[in-house]
């Protein structure tokens, strides 16, 4: 089981080396929260691949959002993307995944943990935040909060389909795209890459067509943006992700657009992924369109 408490992350502490952390698929977390009547940024449980089993001694209202983890309450299947009630003493079982990497267990009232720098997110490498700074273990007890803003809601499934995760990730140029030869850039966008097992919330290592290492990999360390695709010595790209280091010294050939970052959170080892080059204007239009769709999601 690899489940951690996450919300939408902690921003504003970059100069101290604190990366935002937060949900790997923030769209799923936001929608799940809105389904149960929370603010969209409430703390939820991010489950990875295997899911888990959760007893609700006092009952509750939950929604599962993200990849299909085949949820059930006391053995009876319940639908994804739907607010469901548990009576006191009932057990929610989730997983393993039937589709992508992650599923969010959103609880009406939010999951209550001590905030660190204003956020409930767990940063696993440093053991900061979340529930004791770590993934959950058997017998852990989490508290449910009391902050709700609306009654539970329902979504419009036809809109949901329009914000589903993609396997072709759109990317703009990055700060060192022009360090790479045009042939390398073409190879990157033409190639099929596979997510390797050495992938986690810090970054996804890809296997596939190797790219050159410009300037022998020497670069003065600089700030790195979320979704940057860096190319270390060896030429195999790495997608930097929510717990990435805030600064780094490898050239970056491209950067995944904001609208497609939640899709990265659903990639599993052995998934194939491709990249599509887009211009800044298209990236801008995509995030705006996605936000409009999210607002249209609720009946």
């Amino acid at each position, binding site marked *: 089981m690899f489940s951690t408490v996450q919300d939408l992350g902690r921003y504003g502490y970059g100069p*101290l080396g*604190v990366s935002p952390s937060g949900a790997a698929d923030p769209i799923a977390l936001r929608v799940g929260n809105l389904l149960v009547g929370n603010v969209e940024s409430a703390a939820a449980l991010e489950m990875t691949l295997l899911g888990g089993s959760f007893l609700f001694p006092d009952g509750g209202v939950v929604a599962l959002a993200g990849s299909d983890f085949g949820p059930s309450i006391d053995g009876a299947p319940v639908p994804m993307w739907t607010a469901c009630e548990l009576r006191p003493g009932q057990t929610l079982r989730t997983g393993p995944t039937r589709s992508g990497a992650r599923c969010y267990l959103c609880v009406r009232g939010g999951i209550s943990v001590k905030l660190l720098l204003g956020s409930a997110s767990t940063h696993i490498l440093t053991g900061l935040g979340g529930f004791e700074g770590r993934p959950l273990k058997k017998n852990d007890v989490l508290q449910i909060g009391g902050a709700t803003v609306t009654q539970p809601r329902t979504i419009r499934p036809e809109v949901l389909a329009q914000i589903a995760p993609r396997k072709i990730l759109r990317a703009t140029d990055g700060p060192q795209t022009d360090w790479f030869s045009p042939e390398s850039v073409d190879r990157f966008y033409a190639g099929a890459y596979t997510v390797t097992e050495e992938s986690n919330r810090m970054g996804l290592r890809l296997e596939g067509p190797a790219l050159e290492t410009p300037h022998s990999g020497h670069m003065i360390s*600089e700030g790195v943006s*979320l979704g940057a695709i860096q190319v270390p010595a060896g030429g195999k790209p790495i997608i930097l992700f929510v717990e990435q280091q805030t600064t780094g010294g490898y050239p970056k050939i491209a950067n995944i657009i904001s609208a497609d970052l939640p899709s990265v959170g659903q990639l599993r080892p052995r998934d194939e992924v491709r990249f599509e080059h887009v211009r800044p204007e298209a990236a801008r239009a995509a*995030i705006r369109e996605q936000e409009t769709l999210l607002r249209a999601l609720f009946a």
Partner: protein
Amino acid sequence: MTVFRYASDQSLMVYLGETIDLATHRRVLKLLRMLEAEPIPGVRNLHPAYHSLLIVFDPLDQDHANIERTVAGYIDRLESIDLPAPRVVEIPVRYDGPDLNDLAALHHITPERVVELHSSASYIVYFVGFVPGFAYLGGLPPELATPRLETPRKRVPKGSVAIGGTHTGVYPFETPGGWRLIGKTTVEIFDPASQELSRLAIGDVVKFIPVP
């Protein structure tokens, strides 16, 4: 000498120089202070480094052109900004790291001489990155510059004081690391419960104090 680059659809990179040097560092630090004192709406994070500052913003709320225009105006005012005298932070170090003897041997000097050289220098925090509280320090005596380990360690003990290439630093958390470990401090470098959060911050001057 300023260059703006589109880094992603939610970030703009500002380069304030071309090399790692103190004058460029002061430009970076001044711009950071200005952005902290007069925040640009929609900006979510700032990532200063050796010669650059990455500005991360909400793409629904802000755009590159607007931020570039505002930052260019700030940069025009850099010369008029005075930086306060740097804070001096002393870090007590027990110089008994597992790589100390090897490092000394590589340079044909004694471990005592390594300690003497390392602890007599004054270091400047160029920036904090990698993990919370990890300070990139400038000023390592050239006699101590040592390539990183061929095989990085999967786990470097928390508080380790290390040398990597021409840099030195302290690992605030147990993390993987490829630098050579020459000592350890028991001081909590990153403490979320404390007011300042990180014992080391950009622009600080650092001195290592040998302790038995």
